[in-house]
């Protein structure tokens, strides 16, 4: 479904600030894989997800989504394949537009936008039903500006938008990090539900080791621009946080360092 072959990315090349963020990443996701991604600060987790999303051009390597090479495409052309939820709840939605307008824009991801009216009444009905499943009361506020919503509501809406049009890959980059624990748990549960219902292929970066173990069918650990550990199936299910930290030291020769990591 997604294949990264020897993907390299250096920020600010040729300057004293040059930073090799990805050092030849190789990764292959099978359809239906739900991969959690962990790693220390600056390990390259966000950079890897952004490379897949086409936020910047990569230096070398190949990115193949559903048998199509995408490494040369601009960001907005990657969108056809990808649903995204960001760490910052502000990033995924347009604050000055209505809830239903945001959904209508997401429903047309990767399609030609025509001069038909931006939202049909059939759609509105569909959105109302979908919003009701969130149990946040948003179905009665469809014409409210998204800027009025709380961070958790916005993340839930962004999740809905990312999956409204079935993506080949769903990318979640610490999408619960800015939320309070209770809301975070709810948004995570919703993510699980949407991924399972739509049988999505997904990558989720998290700084919560426990979440990384409990969710998904596969876990990868990154360090210093490399994937240093890749585990799935039974072996992943039986992981513990302690074992993960030990694994990290063993593979990298360093202490696990992420100032936001939740180790318990």
């Amino acid at each position, binding site marked *: 479904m997604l294949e990264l072959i020897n993907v390299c990315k250096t920020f600010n090349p040729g300057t004293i600030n040059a930073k090799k963020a990805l050092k030849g990443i190789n990764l292959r996701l099978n359809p239906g894989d739900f991969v959690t991604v962990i790693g220390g600060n600056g390990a390259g987790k966000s950079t890897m997800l952004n490379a897949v*999303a086409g936020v910047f051009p990569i230096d070398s390597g190949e990115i193949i989504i559903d048998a199509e090479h995408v490494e040369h495409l*601009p*960001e*907005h*052309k990657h*969108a*056809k394949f*990808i649903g*995204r939820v*960001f760490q910052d709840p*502000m*990033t*995924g*939605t*347009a*604050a*000055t*537009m209505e809830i239903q*307008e945001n959904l*209508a*824009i*997401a429903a*047309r*991801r*990767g*399609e030609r*936008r*025509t*001069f*038909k*009216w*931006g939202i049909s009444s059939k759609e509105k009905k569909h959105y109302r039903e979908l919003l009701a499943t969130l149990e946040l009361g948003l179905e009665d506020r469809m*014409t409210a*500006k998204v*800027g*009025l919503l*709380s*961070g958790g509501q916005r993340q839930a809406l962004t999740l809905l*938008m990312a999956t409204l049009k079935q993506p080949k890959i769903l990318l979640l980059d610490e999408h619960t*990090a*800015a*939320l*309070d*624990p209770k809301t975070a748990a709810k948004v995570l549960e919703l993510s699980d539900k949407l991924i399972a219902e739509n049988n999505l292929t997904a990558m989720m970066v998290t700084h919560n080791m426990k979440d990384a173990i409990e969710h998904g069918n596969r876990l990868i650990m990154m360090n210093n621009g490399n994937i240093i550990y890749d585990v799935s199936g039974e072996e992943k299910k039986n992981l513990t946080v302690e074992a993960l930290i030990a694994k990290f030291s063993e593979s990298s020769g360093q202490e696990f360092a992420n*100032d*936001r990591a*939740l*180790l*318990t």
Partner: protein
Amino acid sequence: MEALQNYLSSLPGACAQGMIWGIMAIGVYITYKILDIADLTVDGSICTGAAVCAMMMTMGAPLPVAMICAFIAGMLAGAITGFFHTFMGIPAILSGILTQLILWSVNLKIMGIARDASSAANIALSARNFDLCVNMMEMHKSLVVLEIFAVVLIAVLYWFFGTEYGSTLRATGANPAMSRAQGISTSKSKVVGLVLSNGIVALAGSLLAQYQGNADINMGKGAIVIGLAAVIIGEALFGWLSRNNFALKLISVVLGGIVYFIVYSTVIYIGLDTNYLKMLSAIVVALFLAVPYWKKKYLSNTNSIEKKEAKALLKAQQKEAKKKGEQ
């Protein structure tokens, strides 16, 4: 008494001028409010519209053709700015200034064609010689024509920005990162917005040339400030009326233009030195632009959306920090 008489008789003129500049300000609204770009191209493209219209009329073209050509010329000017900004990566403000400078030369050349000279700083477009749709001599007719223009323009824009395609422009201005994640080419949206905006500004320029009876190389000086003033005044005075309705918002912009020129006439009536007018407009616009910033900075207990969101974020961060401390 005579001064008062003069003042009162100047009011219909102020309304006409206000409507022309209000139409121009709708162009400014598209870039400034919808796309979140401060586009200075307009100082040049309003004159381009006037010059093209006056030149074509002088060369014998019928009025509708001349005005359509003015509209297209403005769109081309917007395309140049869009090209500078998106393809060459030049900041939007600078892109607009560069195009403005290009247009200075181009406008002189366009007007030169009418005079059969290599360039000209102005050309006449008198209602005595041509069949014009607005002019100072027929104030009543002019006002009706301008009203129709404004209504049709607003109706078309209401439709356009409501379509799937038009929504992509609104999204681009609201959140470029989200737009790209949803498959929208923000570069393309910006170019389309700049093209549309400057087309409208040039169309207003062609109306202005007819109204004042000439096209002049200096007629666009400070146009952006008048445009912004109309947008800001409209929002301040009639914003409560328009709420979330896009058509009403555009109507407020036109009304803002009218208010601006009524104030202008009043200032003249009071006897203020008109040389100060540009300065005054600039200061008023500067103050209004500062209001949102000041609100954020000094009114800590406003319940604006940003404040609420900032607070929520801060709370989340504090919680996280606390959690970290506990470990």
